[in-house]
């Protein structure tokens, strides 16, 4: 989807601010969100690509103000609700009870999507499978990045679409295609190519001299040029 998450090339965000002696986590809640997500990732509830897509679905203004881990929190809540494991009204009620000091309502353990039914279990990671693939392109081939604008999840960045580059590296393993797995439309195992794009082709007269962007793209995102 064409959303605010696809930031390559945008103007207006100002300087990059680096913090001296930055802590691993800036607050307790950030550490909890990150690490609860790590635990949930092992529970066969969702896959990586739908998690990323859930973040992309965050309203633009919220995406820019929630903070990095605020986005993860948003995705966690939405996915847990969608899978009927923790429902949105339950979270809101718990928030209200905690803030008002009211007695806490225990969740009903029955009649929800947890424990997961066998057929609902999914693999989170496993981006790569041990099977052979036959790459369509070879290092040195000229390729065009497909000009596509799917409404769902994709890893083709907007700035690279319709640009011509050269295959720098063939990752000839069987990689999951995120664009379809995010929507449970299959893993579509395929090679991933490192493609070298010239800054002048990407940014025209505003390009810097002798600069190149290397981007990894699935085979389905490329066509011969």
């Amino acid at each position, binding site marked *: 989807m064409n959303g605010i998450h696809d930031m390559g090339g945008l103007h207006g965000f100002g300087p990059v601010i680096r913090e001296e002696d930055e802590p691993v986590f800036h607050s307790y809640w*950030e550490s909890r969100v990150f690490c609860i997500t790590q635990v949930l990732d092992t529970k066969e509830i969702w896959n990586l690509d739908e998690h990323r897509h859930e973040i992309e679905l965050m309203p633009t203004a919220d995406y820019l103000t929630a903070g990095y881990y605020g986005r993860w929190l948003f995705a966690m809540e939405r996915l847990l609700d969608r899978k009927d494991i923790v429902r949105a009204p339950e979270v809101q009620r718990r928030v209200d009870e905690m803030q008002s000091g009211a007695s806490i309502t225990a969740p009903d353990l029955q009649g929800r999507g947890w424990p997961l039914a066998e057929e609902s279990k999914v693999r989170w990671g496993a981006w790569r499978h041990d099977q052979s693939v036959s790459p369509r392109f070879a290092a040195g081939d000229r390729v065009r990045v497909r000009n596509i604008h799917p409404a769902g999840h994709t890893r083709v960045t907007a700035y690279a679409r319709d640009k011509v580059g050269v295959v720098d590296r063939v990752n000839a393993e069987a990689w999951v295609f995120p664009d379809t797995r995010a929507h449970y439309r299959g893993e579509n195992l395929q090679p991933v190519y490192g493609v070298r794009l010239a800054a002048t082709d990407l940014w025209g007269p505003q390009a810097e001299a002798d600069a190149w962007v290397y981007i990894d793209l699935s085979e389905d995102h490329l066509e011969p040029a």
Partner: protein
Amino acid sequence: MDKNPPKEKPWQAVRTEAVESLLVELGVIDSARVDEIVRHYEEKVGPKGGARVVARAWVDPDFKQRLLADGLAACAELGLGGPETEKLHVVENSATVHNAVVCTLCSCYPWPILGVPPAWYKSSAYRSRMVREPRALLGEMGLTLDPSVEVRVWDSVSEIRYLVLPERPAGTESCSEEQLAALVTRDSMIGVAKVTV
């Protein structure tokens, strides 16, 4: 880390507490396991791991060859590896080529080798600008590249992760591997700084 947040909690803190308590009561997660993972990221992994890899590559040409051929296998020799990194490409800086890494779509980063990324790496400013004006941005960040140096920006939007092998600084010929590792910064392994003595 602030384990005793102030009374006025941000909304994210309140909601996180609510979600965690429900997940625990429903038996989905165990908070002790979450604690363990927090400690893992706060204490066990971090840029020191990557620095050991770089220092080894500087002193051991055979290791460097293996590292450039298969980054993950070479890192495993030093006991490094783990989730979120399926394949690791190591890109080498030289007098004529400078590499830097970004993820314009989210924040992809080699966690097992460098730990969790710093906030600036995940910032809108870095993600938007690094692919479009790397020389200007690196200059602002304190790294001015000679015009004769080719700049390569790696937009790591797939499941392949990147580690920059920075140049070994002059004047370190007599340094031990351990001393060299102490010089290697996280930023130099992302490619926004050089290693200096």
